[in-house]
């Protein structure tokens, strides 16, 4: 199948790639652009490991075609920290709270949490749990993840 030329913006940088029209955005990020931070846990939209922001909206990149990124803005885990490496408060709080074990779900959960805090800077425990219900973690039982998100939100409100 002939490939389609795609021009898009990833983490603020302009990028181009050739996509087979059957390939997902997740495939494009991982295999065409070398951005392997987004993970594939299911490929069917059920685990959230592939979460990215598409024009600011939280999506499962395994359910988006690579060609759909044309002209859009994609934000991935690789763009969460500042350019000089300064960590986003969510990243710092995940480390401090030991909110990761194997860490495979972590990129997706961080991206999803960032989207939550952009919408709701002061979420309750229940709101965090329901927002993250699409992000599976098999290791942690979610306790420390939920605490880390709430703590990061508090810090970000204080800093604002």
């Amino acid at each position, binding site marked *: 199948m002939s490939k389609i030329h795609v021009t898009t913006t990833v983490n603020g940088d302009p990028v181009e790639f050739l996509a087979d029209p059957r390939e997902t955005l997740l495939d494009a990020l991982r295999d065409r652009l070398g951005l392997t931070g987004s993970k594939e846990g299911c*490929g069917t939209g059920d*685990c959230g490991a592939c979460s990215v922001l598409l024009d600011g909206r939280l999506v499962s990149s395994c359910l988006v075609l690579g060609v759909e990124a044309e002209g859009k803005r994609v934000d991935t885990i690789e763009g969460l920290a500042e350019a000089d490496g300064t960590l986003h408060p969510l990243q710092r709080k995940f480390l401090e709270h030991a909110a990761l074990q194997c860490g495979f779900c972590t990129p997706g959960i961080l991206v999803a949490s960032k989207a939550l805090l952009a919408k709701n800077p002061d979420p309750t425990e229940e709101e965090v749990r329901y927002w993250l219900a699409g992000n599976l973690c098999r290791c942690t039982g979610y306790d420390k993840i939920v605490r880390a998100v709430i703590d990061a939100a508090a810090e970000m409100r204080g800093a604002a």
Partner: protein
Amino acid sequence: MAKDEMTREFKLVGTRALRPDGLDKVTGRARYGADFALPGMLWGAVVRSPHAHARIVGIDAAKALALDGVKAVVTRADFPAGLTGSDWDIQENVMAGEVALYDGHAVAAVAATSALIAQEAARLIEVSYDLLPHVTDVDAAMRPDAPAIRPGSADHTVPDGMSPNVVSYIEYGRGDLDAGFAEADIVREQTYKSEATHQGYIEPQACVGQLGADGKGEMWVTTQGQWYVRRDCANVLGLDVAQLRVTPSEIGGGFGGKTTVFMEPLALALSRKAGGKPVKLVMSRAEVLRATGPTASASMDVKIGMKKDGTMTAGRVEFRMQGGAFPGSPVPDALKCAFAPYKLPAVLHIGYDVLANRPKAAAYRAPGAPMAAFAVESLVDEMARELGLDPLELRQKNAVEEGDQSSYGPKFRKIGLKEVLAAARAHPNLAAPLGPNQGRGIATGYWSNYNGDTAVSMAVAEDGTVQVSVGTPDIGGSRASIGLMVAEYLGIPYESVRVNVVETGALAINEPTHGSRATFANGKAAVAACDQAIKEMCRRAAADWGIDAEAVEWIDGAAQPAGPNAGKFPPMSLAEIAGRMSDSGGPIAGHFEGIPRGVGASFGTHVVDVEVDPETGRTTILRYLVVQDAGRAIQPAYVEGQYQGGAAQGIGWALNEGYVYGADGRLQNATFLDYRIPVASDLPMIDTVIVEVPNPGHPFGVRGVGETGIAPPLPAVANAVAAATGVRLRELPMSPPKVLEAIRGRRDG
């Protein structure tokens, strides 16, 4: 190590130090199995049987091979014949021979220049089958008229006259069972069933394999044990073990499921056939669920005798477990765990390992213990209720302690069950008021923990920092805990130690990260390795000072004269000795190879409050408490994480998870949508209490914490549901329709 080590205060051990791999894991930099790629790499895809049991009549790959970009197709014909025992089992599971034994069994594999071409080629490979009768349920598989899956595979333990699917039989016990039951005021017997569940690690199996015509190969793979991958791949392919070099990636969860091989040998076989080009294989979630090892399904009879005051007089269990179409269900460990928490004068264990047309079971966190706990702890709870006794008090009354003979044989060394039960009793969750349709459940679980083949090396760098090489992939923070122990022991900062998980070429053989052994075994091995280096550093200092090496001791990270008679010299730090090592005799290092002795068993007790909706049958977890003996928590946050993660997996097993097979023998729920593991909104915060009864067999008192915590949730939740609804469910999972049916049965009955 000093004798007073068990009671001394630590500087680093017990602190919540940040994990060394943390930064990579919050930035997306950490490289997991599927993140690895090589130039010129091919992509593989696997053709799998859609049938539960079928003779393979023919495989026609002509159309696939005619497709542009296809480089190789392999079938069983590309693997050596003549393997026996468990090597044959692994080979047969990796690639079916004459018969496909379960839905999802691999029958062919293809490599091509892209993943899409490989997938298309896999669809073009034509396999013709003759269907055979199948069986997926363990009790059905034991009937005399059940379809025989692998006739003749029973071992010598199986008595005559049993179904050909029973491949192993276990029977052992002690004491006078009849007298024990005669002495009891009540004797109760019940049957319990639990469905197979999957480890459910979020990272699917993935590897890149490369194998040349010279029999030398390399593999990059997500695994709990790179040496097991090396050994199993070499055996399956007929290679020399040491000619294969296996490098583990970061691992996205394993829980036992990544201690063996599934498609890894296929990547090597494809590479060999494609002229040595590296081949990448990544499983889909459906492949993970259909074709990697879940745990066993179980059918279990339990009989217990009890006096009115709750004293247990005798116990008997008969466990039947199917672990797929191959021997090796976890029935031996299930039996061992069944009555482990209890002092019992008379006990009998009977176990059957049974074949069924399902994928080959792999280890899953404390293999066998959760099912055993479900059966025994449910019946103990039923009897406590009948006698009007407090379930926690009843467990305290019968709890084993140091010196007691265990239900399965050996005497217990120092254990912390009584301390665990006391801590559970003192927790505020036990005083929380319960409303209508709410109930509280309590249960205990046991895991013996494990040591295994262990090789560790440490080496001093020129600036006095230290590297430690270990062979156990780090799943939940073991590099941090090993780093803390090494830094503590050497007397240097935690930040001065780097712990690396290394490839097979860098150390002697290591068993995987399994059996809760990583912190126990590596910690003990690393201390032995450090002792060698400390001895050498004391020798260097002694030479410099012109005194006897015996007159130097290691205190606070420096060589120091031992007492006033040794002479007066200022302490010589590790960094000073390191800076001069090239001039004072060369590299300084230490290593350990062996099996660290002194494993410490671990008990845990869980308390859960649930609410059951009488209209829908849905169970909500209101409160959850884990109390478990860690021996010593090296990094408490990661110990809590193990407790919480184990509880969550056990809750999923109790309420939602389970393999669903259709009448056609096909798996009906091979997606995360239908195989539903707990999500964040299903759970409350999970409270933890870390009990520390140090293990005298370990320099820091470590027991191992990873596994015990998955056993108690199954019965704890079942007991809570019984308390909330007044009906007892003896079959897992307790899904809403089943609970509803049980509640309606009570109303009607």
